[in-house]
């Protein structure tokens, strides 16, 4: 009886809307400036899972100007939704797998359609610092090692469905499935050559070296974001949406 109740409860949670995350203080493992050693993050709502192929298909049907082949080249590159069989047909892509090969512009358009926005980097990182039991597991070497292990593996040709274990905020798949867009990815100031100590391109940025090994996972996310342009798509890059108030 109890196990049935638990199953029903978790099914209910899975069907529930976005999770409330924060408020909290995000401690960047690698602060980009002295004033960013602690970043206050107001409470917000975050999709429990990444946006799936099925979700995104519904979007392009409702907003055909964003379908493959019609979306403007200013906003997407030539690989946009390349893993679908056609602009309207997923083919071998799993409906419940996270949608990838979407650009920042198209991800933003989707979230606006859903009444939300992309999460900001600090919001995403606050949510992603949690493991299954602790809201801030960033100092746990085992947690960091797991993340680094995933970064070391190439992307599989067909991505699996969403639905990993929930973290302490009730959010799933922030690690181990896909990279995710954030609203202010253009704030990632890792210059393309990370060893440049003078950085004449950047007004006042900090050195990009960290002596703390737990910084590396964050650092790699920042480096990944820093390599992107807004119209870029990638086979391992998806997104989820954030909301300033609960959509329910």
């Amino acid at each position, binding site marked *: 009886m109890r196990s049935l109740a638990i199953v029903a409860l978790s099914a209910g949670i899975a069907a529930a809307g976005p999770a409330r995350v924060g408020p909290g203080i995000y401690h960047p493992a690698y602060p980009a400036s002295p004033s960013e050693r602690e970043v206050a993050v107001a409470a917000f709502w975050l999709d429990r899972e990444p946006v799936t192929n099925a979700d995104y298909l519904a979007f392009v049907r409702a907003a055909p100007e964003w379908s493959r082949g019609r979306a403007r080249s200013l906003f997407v590159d030539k690989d946009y939704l390349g893993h679908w069989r056609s602009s309207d047909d997923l083919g071998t892509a799993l409906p419940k797998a996270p949608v990838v090969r979407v650009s920042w512009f198209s991800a933003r358009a989707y979230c606006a359609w859903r009444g939300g926005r992309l999460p900001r980097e600090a919001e995403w990182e606050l949510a992603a610092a949690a493991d299954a039991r602790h809201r801030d597991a960033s100092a746990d070497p085992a947690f960091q090692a797991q993340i680094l292990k995933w970064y070391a593996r*190439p992307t599989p040709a067909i991505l699996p469905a969403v639905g990993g274990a929930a973290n302490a905020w009730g959010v799933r798949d922030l690690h181990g499935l896909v990279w995710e867009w954030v609203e202010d990815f253009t704030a990632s100031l890792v210059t393309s*050559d990370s060893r440049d100590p003078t950085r004449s391109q950047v007004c006042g940025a900090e050195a990009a070296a960290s002596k703390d090994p737990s910084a590396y996972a964050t650092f790699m996310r920042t480096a*990944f974001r820093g390599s992107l342009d807004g119209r870029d798509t990638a086979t391992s890059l998806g997104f989820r949406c954030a909301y300033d108030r609960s959509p329910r």
Partner: protein
Amino acid sequence: MAWRGMAVAVVLGVLAKTSLLLLVASACHASSAAPTDDFIEVVPASSQPDVTSTPVGHPLIAQLTTAPEVPAKIFRNHPAHVIVNLTVNEVEKEIAPGVRYTFWTFGGDVPGKFIRVRQGDVVEIHLKNDPSSKMPHNIDLHAVSGPGGGAESTFTAPGHESHFTFRATKPGLYVYHCATAPVPMHVANGMYGMIFVEPPGGLPAVNHEYYIMQGELYTVGKYHAPGLQAFDMDKGIDERPTYVLFDGAEGSLVGDKALTAKTGDTIRIFFGNGGPNLDSNFHVIGTIFDRVYTEGGSIAQEHVQTTLVPSGGAAIVELTVEAPGTYAIVDHALFRAFNKGAVGQLKVTGPSRSDLFSAKQADVAYAGGPVEAPRLRTDGDPVLQMGESTFGRICAACHQPNGLGLPGQFPPLARSDYLAKQPKEVIIGHLLHGLQGPVTVLGMTYNGTMPPLAFLSDNEIAAVLTYVRASFGNSLSRITPDEVSRVRGQTASAP
């Protein structure tokens, strides 16, 4: 510069051997499908090597090779526009039997592809990052003169491609590697290779050219722990590698993958050290490097046993192999060779050269050299006491008080194999009748004369023999006066 003289010599040699063939310069390069330019243009010997003219004609596609192969020598006498197509692949490979690691590679292998261009070439790098890659990557070539070595211009997200052009103004052997944050991790995961900027006229011909690159691996599991191993950042920071490898795997140059040559061959090894942390102490056991272009530069040192190659550095070594056999290639920081995998092989076939190198010539027993044994305690044993005093009076003059004898003159009695092997009667006979002629003790032959000591009584002979057989590290049976008497009676007339 040492190479320029050689280049002039090569050109003069060509002039002497060939009739004048005037080849139209642009026609040589018309086919961009040809990976190398085989035509040798005749150049007046007095002209300076051309490293500055603007390339004309269609660009060439650089021939890239996987270790241990090296692209063909470049013969053309003028700069060209060369395109290098490099793709970054993140790929799982075996590093030892049952042990796997996910490498980030330039071209699918560790080390990355070998690039060979000529001084003065305009080199256009097309860096592609495979869509299946998880990480962005870029490239810093040490051959580039300019900030970052190209890294800033080649930052490439997965599924994208970057182009970057530089002029190879200086000759030499240079490392290239990825410089994306965190840089040491990208290098530790295998993102290093080499580019050789050949001086005009090239290097002198050799029988074989090989490409070897050393690098470390930092894994969470111990050495030879099976399965897919994860990168260990802490070990990397502490500079405690689990593996030190040539060409990305244990056994990459071993057995049927060993480098090969024939006796008398000259070999050139382009050796690089990707690091990320350790220097290499490059040595080929059983050979001396005839020439080492230390640090991949223009000046060679001669007759070098082991050359130090810094992390992020390179060396060109040249050697000649005279005798057949298998030569081990090692990092001479030996725990790396024996316990971390830094060992390869060069197998040389051909007729033996016993004038230079013999196989084992003799294998004889060696019971240890004469070693002074502790003095025997004789108190309480009148026989031993008599033996000790007799020994001191008569035997010690030749056999020495410590029983070690004198090499070449008087054989030792200490730990004597002769005493152990000979029957008692023979030994008794020596004392009674003396000994002439060669006798071999502990591997040495003595050809002296031992005078007869028949004037000693049976008791004395028995006592001194008993004393000697129990002393000086010997542990042999006692001899009785009866035994002496028997021999004396038997061999009274024997010579």
